[in-house]
């Protein structure tokens, strides 16, 4: 597939929802992709096919359906391993999403390894799911949670990291590879290099990065990595936790139950091999298989093309935004350092009112704190409006957004 506007225009046909209208017969302009993406027919059909033809519980039975479903489930694991360049499939654990992934680490790695006085370092632009689990853990263990600050362009101040590492007490540094509010792409290589030099583990929240750019875990060199399927064309309810094997081997079990055990006796139990030790109970089989179909779809497009498409759209949108008086964009303007997420405020109009008014024009835009209240405090705003793009968005969508902002200006007499 060529990375031209017309080929991206064509793939809109794969997304049935884009054909519907909303409110007063308005064309749907879906710009909340950082929250969740729409699904192509290929993914929807994979789920349907699974239930119509193969559905059975996995791993335990010998009959035909069980054989087929187990194979499809494990094939999806291989596809995902390949997609983010993980060499050892035993390191990939299926979870509900990024939130469960990070909490799993906080419980199964954090509780055995974090002690009183230890420090966990996160950043000011994290999603709540990369803050609250560490608050809970550090409170329980009388450890400390510290924040890497950022400058006004939304770039991390790595001097803060040096300062914390120098204490010798840091056990984990955790950060998002792409901010879900500012779009900032974190300089992961630099952070990981510093942490490795200090013998400190790193966790990356890849929820925003993996859907929008090529990510290579083998070269990245972090120790934990989390992402969600639903933000990259896959169904809701499925995501990935990757953990380097040498670290995974030091983790306690998380959930107890079926499939994660080797032998259960009344008073003692032994554990199954990796990754199954961390996949207790009947997993979300159909959506794992749907995730595999989403990976196939993105692979066919090519992640470099996805990134290129978003760079084009974001550049176009930023130029248009710059011409609207009173419209303030947050984060860096350097397009090579940010993804296709644009947070803004429009004069003194509250983001909720912006979102509500333009919703009536068919524009689906997120307003609020975007699960990043710490960042809102840092930016000294109550909320922002946020437009975020994906493969099916076009310049026409950006134009529609700009037009709708004119209505906001009229209503609020700007």
């Amino acid at each position, binding site marked *: 597939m060529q990375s031209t506007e017309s080929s991206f225009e064509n793939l809109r046909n794969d997304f049935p929802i884009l054909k519907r209208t909303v409110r007063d017969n308005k064309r749907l302009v879906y710009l909340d992709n950082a929250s969740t993406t729409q699904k192509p027919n290929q993914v929807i059909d994979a789920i349907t096919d699974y239930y119509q033809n193969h559905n059975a519980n996995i791993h335990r039975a010998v009959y035909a359906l069980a054989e087929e479903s187990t194979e499809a489930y494990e094939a999806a694991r291989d596809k995902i391993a390949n997609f983010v360049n993980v060499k050892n499939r035993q390191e990939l654990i299926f979870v509900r999403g990024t939130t469960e992934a990070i909490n799993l680490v906080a419980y199964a790695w954090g509780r055995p390894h974090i002690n009183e006085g230890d420090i966990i370092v996160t950043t000011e632009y994290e999603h709540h799911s990369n803050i609250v689990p560490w608050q809970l853990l550090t409170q329980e263990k009388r450890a400390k949670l510290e924040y890497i600050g950022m400058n006004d362009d939304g770039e991390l101040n790595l001097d803060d990291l040096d300062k914390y590492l120098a204490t010798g007490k840091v056990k984990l540094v955790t950060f998002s590879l792409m901010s879900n509010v500012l779009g900032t792409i974190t300089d992961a290589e630099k952070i990981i290099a510093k942490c490795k030099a200090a013998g400190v583990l790193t966790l990356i929240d890849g929820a925003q990065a993996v859907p929008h750019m090529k990510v290579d875990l083998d070269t990245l060199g972090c120790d934990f990595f989390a992402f969600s399927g639903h933000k990259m064309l896959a169904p809701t309810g499925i995501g990935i936790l990757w953990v380097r094997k040498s670290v995974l081997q030091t983790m306690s079990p998380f959930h107890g139950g079926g499939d994660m055990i080797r032998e259960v006796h009344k008073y003692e139990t032994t554990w199954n091999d990796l990754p199954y030790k961390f996949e207790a109970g009947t997993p979300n089989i159909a959506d794992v298989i749907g995730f595999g179909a989403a990976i196939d779809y993105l692979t066919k497009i090519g992640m470099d093309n996805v990134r290129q498409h978003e760079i084009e759209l974001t550049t176009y949108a930023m130029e248009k935004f710059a011409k609207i008086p009173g419209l303030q964009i947050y984060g860096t303007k350097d397009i090579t350092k940010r993804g296709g997420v644009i947070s803004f405020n429009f004069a003194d109009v509250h983001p*909720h009112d912006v979102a*509500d008014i333009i919703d009536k024009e068919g524009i689906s835009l997120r307003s609020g704190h975007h699960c990043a209240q710490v960042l809102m405090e840092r930016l000294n705003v109550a909320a922002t409006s946020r437009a975020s793009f994906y493969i099916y968005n076009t310049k026409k969508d950006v134009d529609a957004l700009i037009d709708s902002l004119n209505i906001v200006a009229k209503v*609020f007499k700007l």
Partner: protein
Amino acid sequence: MSSGTDIYHEMIVDYSRNPINYGEIEDHDVTFHDSNPLCGDSIDIDMKIDDQKVSDIKFHGKGCAICMACTSVLTEITKGKSLEEVKKIDKNDILSELGLEHLQAVRIKCALLSLKVLKSALYTYLGAHLENTEGIDKLKTEAENLY
């Protein structure tokens, strides 16, 4: 103008820029804070109570135009009322005043955050000024049945 912008009439826009009863009461008899976990709107209400009546009321916080307008209207309605009357203030008293009867579910939460804060403040005050402990269960039930 499309139907959606109907709720954003003159009064709402004005209140959002010039809210009524905005501020703090230093020597309040009761204050309460709450926020909407979904959008981050956050409101504090302070009240002065004399003779079982709301002699003064002020609010501050951050919120959208709907939230600000509703809080303005609510505080205006509340001022001067007896505590028993405040108990009876209903969401429709606010919504109808502003023509917001048909708000969608998410926005209803913006519109009614201040009512929730007001009622919480009221029951906090009542709880703290109970003459005997017998009334506490009745109060609790009343408070629990609010939503």
